[in-house]
């Protein structure tokens, strides 16, 4: 009798767990369709982890502006972009820490735009990053840091909702779509080693004048410096060169006062810092805002990303003495596969632009 009761109890718990897990899988966003592809990026890394000489860490200004395929094809540099939408520096730090559990690159490139944020700007971006991370002590700390950052913004998140994302996404029952069924048990790859491709063009109409910067916003937040210090130390401890960059985006504004602080920080810590908004870099890279952006200067398109990669790849190789690995047959074959997918997607996007006026499978209609 007691045995039967235990069996019933165990079966009950298992059945409940099964139902719960199924509902959770069903209701969690799949991030397989535009415009939310960014949510799928973080977990794609685990299929490509290891063997990268360069790892980019940061927000959309890295995953839209650099092409690992170009870096490989031009310089034989294997690289990966661990980017996510509006990635805050505490997230970047923990992503880097996690990355180092899988590999030790020679160079880590960090985009400094997130230095301006001391709190979460939008909770869904936390989810897009954290829900894609595998559980580890690093993720636990990352979740805690993100929850604290949300609290600073007045948004109350719970740790439990990261352990059981159903508690966060339960209300999606009314938004379920075909993607939720199609990608219930499998996913497709949306990036090319972290690069999110867009080939369409939406030129910069004019260079906007910067908004007034309040005096209290002039100094980059202390908490960001704290994480930057930790990132710097992490790289030093692992013999990694940390390179700070500011990607060439017209918006959001990157103020001179911030730039000066980054230059000072880089100089103090012996780090390289490149502000690609500087005229010399823009001219040398050949970035043309009339052809190289798909959204009026916020992000580069494929053309712009390839130009930036050609330009920055040269700097990386020369300054940090990165080897050309194209001679490694096995690696070359692997990268050839990636390149094939890359060019296939490029062709697909160009075909859709030709056919529909914009890449329908990759973006929302231009007017939206």
């Amino acid at each position: 009798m007691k045995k039967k009761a235990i069996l019933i109890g165990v079966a009950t718990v298992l059945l409940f767990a099964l139902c719960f897990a199924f509902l959770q899988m069903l209701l969690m966003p799949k991030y397989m369709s535009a415009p939310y592809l960014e949510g799928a990026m973080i977990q794609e890394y685990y299929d490509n982890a290891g063997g990268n000489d360069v790892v980019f860490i940061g927000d959309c200004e890295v995953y839209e502006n650099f092409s690992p395929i170009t870096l490989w094809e031009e310089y034989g540099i294997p690289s990966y972009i661990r980017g996510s939408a509006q990635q805050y520096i505490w997230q970047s730090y923990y992503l880097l820490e996690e990355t180092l559990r899988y590999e030790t690159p020679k160079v880590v490139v960090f985009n400094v735009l997130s230095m301006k944020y001391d709190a979460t700007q939008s909770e869904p971006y936390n989810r897009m990053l954290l829900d894609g991370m595998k559980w580890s002590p690093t993720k636990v700390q990352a979740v805690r840091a993100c929850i604290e950052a949300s609290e600073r913004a007045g948004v109350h998140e719970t740790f439990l909702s990261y352990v059981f994302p159903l508690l966060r996404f339960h209300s999606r029952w009314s938004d379920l779509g075909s993607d939720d069924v199609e990608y219930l048990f499998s996913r497709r790859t949306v990036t090319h080693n972290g690069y999110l491709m867009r080939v369409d063009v939406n030129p910069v109409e004019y260079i906007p004048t910067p908004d007034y910067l309040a005096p209290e916003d002039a100094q980059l937040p202390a908490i960001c410096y704290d994480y930057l210090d930790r990132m710097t130390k992490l790289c030093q401890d692992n013999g990694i060169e940390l390179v700070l960059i500011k990607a060439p985006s017209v918006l959001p504004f990157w103020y001179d006062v911030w730039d000066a602080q980054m230059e000072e920080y880089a100089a103090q810590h012996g780090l390289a810092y490149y502000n690609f908004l500087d005229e010399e870099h823009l001219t040398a890279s050949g970035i043309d805002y009339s052809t190289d952006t798909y959204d009026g200067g916020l992000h580069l398109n494929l053309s712009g990303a390839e130009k930036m990669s050609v330009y920055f790849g040269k700097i990386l190789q020369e300054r940090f003495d990165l080897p050309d690995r194209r001679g490694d047959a096995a690696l070359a074959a692997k990268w050839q596969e990636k390149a094939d997918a890359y060019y296939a997607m490029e062709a697909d996007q160009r075909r859709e632009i030709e056919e529909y006026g914009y890449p329908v499978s990759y973006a929302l209609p231009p007017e939206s």
Partner: protein
Amino acid sequence: MSFISFSFLAFFAVLFCLYYVIPRRFQWMLLLLGSYVFYLFGGVQYIGYILVTTLSTYLLARRLGTLHASQDAYLAAHKKELDREAKKAYKAGVKRRMWKWLLLGLFLNFGILAVIKYLDFGIQNLNAILGLFGAGQLGLFRFALPLGISFYTFQSMGYLIDVYRGKTQAEKNLGKFALFVSFFPQILQGPISRFDQLAPTLFAEHAFDSRNVSFGLQRMLWGFFKKVVIADRVAVAVQAIVTTRTDAGDPAYTGLFVLLGLVLYAIQIYGDFTGGIDITIGMAQMLGVKLPENFERPYFSKSIAEYWRRWHMTLGEWFKDYLFYPLSICRPMMKLANFSRRKFGDKIGKRVTVYISTLAVWFTTGLWHGAAWNFVVWGLLNGVIILISYELEPLYRRFHAKFHVEKHFAYRLFQVGRTFLLMGALRMLDVYHDVGLTFRMLGSIFTAPNFAALGDAALLEGLGLTAGDVAVVALGVVVMLAVSLAGRRGSVRVRLAARPFVLRYCLFFLLTLVILVFGAYGIGYNASDFIYSVF
């Protein structure tokens, strides 16, 4: 720490496990510790108030108990020497002393409640009067309301009065009494328990009883369903109806939308309050503690008087036992009744005490719900309608005798519907928080129903409910109704327990998953606090 927060569930889970692991003689101590931890989560600064109430009530009750005991001892020792008059005189003397101690307790504790909750209301009214004469205004104190102060004050004072009356023995153990005052499941929104009923179950040693735990858990789940799936979802639309304004500053939702708001708020407050009580009683049951019921299918009531016998029953009984009856039979009231009889005859004379006591009870009930005129008017209107019904009773009887409709389902349905709408209309005072606006809005149902507005896409969208939400609410209400109807034939849980376990477990799984998926909680929802937890 709200009952519907994960932190509370974690807190309760830990406490529950410890409760059945520790030696049983320590169980009540764990509950006391848990109750104070829970209370401290609500705000460290409030702990002083509940401690004052606990200590003062404990000491005064002990004093009353001692007086009772010494009276009994004295009378027993002098049984033969004292004649009836002497005994009576002695008792009267003791009673006078006890009365003073009781008054001290009542003044102190109701005084705290009055200052914290009602002082600003009084000052605001005084300021309004001073304003008429162009006089200066007094500043407000803006005291923060301690957690559950109305509930624990009423519960404690009920106990003190019972000890005074000799109905209850004064509790000797301060810790146990502190637990009676602060027992965490009920401190937020009741039910308001009586010491003689709660103490035996609260302080007893409880062995793990799977049936109690299972039934308690089921009741909690049912409460969560009502609160999180229905009440909190409907709350969005109610708020929209009440607070949305046009560019000119007028209410955007008028006419039939007010009627819709009335119905939706009835659903909200039912789900919210009965759901909260289900969670409370279920939680207590899981700990082996039996709390009194607070509802008995109130929306099936056929009159307002009946409604109030079935809604928030413990508060109604408190007012009946500790205010209505004492007020009705107090010496000044008896004198007034006699005077009225002499002056206006028996018919009016016998009504005077009933009328005054009823209106006093409803005035106080209104104030208990909130320090604002909308609550006072709400309370008084309830009293007035009950008195009107009382006066119309002979007419109803004649009508029933002539037409024999009492037993007809349609007529009973009419009575239930009438009571539901009437109570709903009164409740709108609680929603609009403005007496004039409430009456204007209720009036607009008749004067400007505006049927066309019901098809206005912008207004419907403004309610904040998607088609899915409406479907969930509709289904939820049907389920609540079905369970209420089933409950008329006895405990639903007892009947479910007789069903095959597969069916039972499937049902509970389903309910749990429904709460998890369809609950209006987490980011994207502004989960409401329990409405009654602010009283």
